[in-house]
């Protein structure tokens, strides 16, 4: 049987992949996808600990994380659309001004 440590290590690996994606990619949409990977790694940790402790609280927190992720995706993609209209680019390095 896989133990709690297996799930935690998998979660850590997924989180690191997401972090690396945020730093390495130069595309706003891929960066948002990397954030989703990180959120899912955290969800896996919550569920694994909830299973290990025998409570349902972990699963409930995962629901809240999912709703926050949905809200974040909606607002983030709206911002991406707005930025793309102004600059015709998705490279975050082109957005260096606070106001246009």
């Amino acid at each position: 049987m896989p133990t709690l440590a297996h799930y935690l290590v998998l979660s850590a690996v997924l989180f690191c992949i997401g972090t690396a994606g945020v730093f390495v990619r130069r595309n706003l949409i891929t960066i948002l996808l990397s954030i989703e990977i990180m959120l899912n790694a955290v969800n896996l940790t919550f569920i694994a600990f909830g299973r290990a402790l025998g409570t349902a609280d972990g699963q409930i927190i995962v629901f809240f994380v999912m709703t926050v992720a949905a809200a974040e995706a909606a607002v983030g993609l709206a911002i991406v659309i707005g930025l793309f209209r102004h600059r015709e680019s998705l490279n975050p390095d082109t957005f260096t001004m606070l106001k246009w």
Partner: protein
Amino acid sequence: MTLFYLFAAVAVVASMLVIAQRNPIYSVLLLIASFGALSGLYVLLDAPFVAVTQIIVYAGAIMVLFLFVVMLLNAPHEETERDERLHLLRRPGPMRFGAVLAAALVMELVWALTSGGGETGSFPGAQVSSVRALGRSLFTDYAFPFEVTSVLILVAMVGAVVLARRESGPSVPPDA
């Protein structure tokens, strides 16, 4: 155990390919595969309702939203060798620093797997968490966060509409 390694391998490989792609459409599709593997892991962890929610909400709603935006923007590929060579993280100093950090992380993970596991880390006996208990807990102990979540969704919806609106309309004041 085999299922765990199968799902874990699919999740990790798909996530790494998400990072490796230059075309965002492939990234989104691969991320859906990664989420499918994660929902399999949730089933292994006795959380079937979360697994179904993962498929419906994440793979079904959020990823389709991403896909929709990618196609709406007709997104250009990352343009690029020139930009990437100029990029701060591509310089040798930060790359060496990152390699050291990655090696430290791998050592920690190996240490965690070899020493921390054992009997104390194994899960208690199977007890499939019922949706009934989950719902009861959600609407009693967590009733207030649940209601706050609805306000959050409303704010996000209004915010997305305001942000994505075209600002060239005559009815919009210039400094809005």
